[in-house]
């Protein structure tokens, strides 16, 4: 741990910006938050006398399309960061705009899924499976909404603040958070839909 710091004597203590260290600390706490829910899922499933298979009760094609949407948005926010660090303002705005559009697409598809469940009289209180499903996808959806707010804020600020020396670092932080939201879905999708 000390070797990398020693190899970069210019770095005061950590070798990374405070912003990046802060984002990673925040993601560490987020891992524990979602980890709690995954543990709950496992304990409830292992303790259940029966458990519905995902493909019988959920829309697997819609979940798969949403996986594609979220993975694509991870790539576009990455390209937005690349453009920001290359000082290419219009390129940044294009890819950040695409990221936000894809995030809304994810929520719209998820909304159709929720709507179909509600139309069939399936609510979080209907069964243990539904409670787990709505809690986990709901918290994940809330994170998507938070990502949209942060990314829209950066897109708005880029109008005036794009030349700010810390701007690319902010985009990197927002990107780290967004990739984490992607990773959560990468585990949620098979856990709920495919197993």
């Amino acid at each position, binding site marked *: 741990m000390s070797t990398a710091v020693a190899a970069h004597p210019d770095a005061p203590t950590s070798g990374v910006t405070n912003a990046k260290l802060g984002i990673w600390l925040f993601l560490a706490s987020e891992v524990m938050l979602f980890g709690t829910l995954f543990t709950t899922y496992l304990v409830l499933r292992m303790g259940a006398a029966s458990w519905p298979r995902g493909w019988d*009760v959920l829309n697997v094609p819609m979940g798969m399309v949403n996986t594609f949407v979220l993975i694509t948005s991870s790539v576009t926010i990455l390209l937005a960061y690349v453009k920001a660090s290359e000082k290419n303002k219009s390129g940044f705005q294009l890819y950040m705009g695409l990221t936000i559009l894809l995030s809304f697409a994810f929520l719209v598809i998820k909304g159709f899924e929720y709507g179909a469940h509600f139309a069939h009289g399936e609510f979080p209180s209907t069964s243990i*499976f539904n409670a787990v499903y709505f809690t986990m996808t709901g918290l994940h959806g809330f994170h998507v909404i938070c990502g949209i707010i942060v990314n829209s804020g950066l897109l708005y600020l880029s109008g005036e603040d794009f030349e700010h020396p810390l701007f690319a670092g902010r985009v990197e932080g927002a990107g780290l958070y967004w990739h984490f939201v992607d990773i959560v879905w990468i585990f949620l999708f098979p856990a709920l839909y495919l197993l």
Partner: protein
Amino acid sequence: MSEQTAHAHDIRPYLFVFGALLVLTVVTVTVSYLHLPPGPAIALGLAIATIKAALVAAFFMHLKGERAIIYGLIAITVFFLIVLFVLPITDSNWTSSRRVEHAAVGAQAEAAEAPAR
């Protein structure tokens, strides 16, 4: 400094990882249609998800070539995540009297009973 902030990135690895993630998603969905027994299905699904998450973390989150302090932070997080999983699951296994609930009711329960668990 200007070289650090304004150098051109090579985006080809990102696009390669993007393709790999799409393919792995198709693979994991296709495998689920085989309706494997729970043991192998969970092992395979978890393995593919872990590979996908590792690809995102290594390339998109730039963990490949990140500073040591971030690795240390992640190591601590993973350790406590394992604790978070192991303790409640061990407890749940020892108190088997809690295993009484059906997770689904009505039409869902009928669907759950239909395929062999």
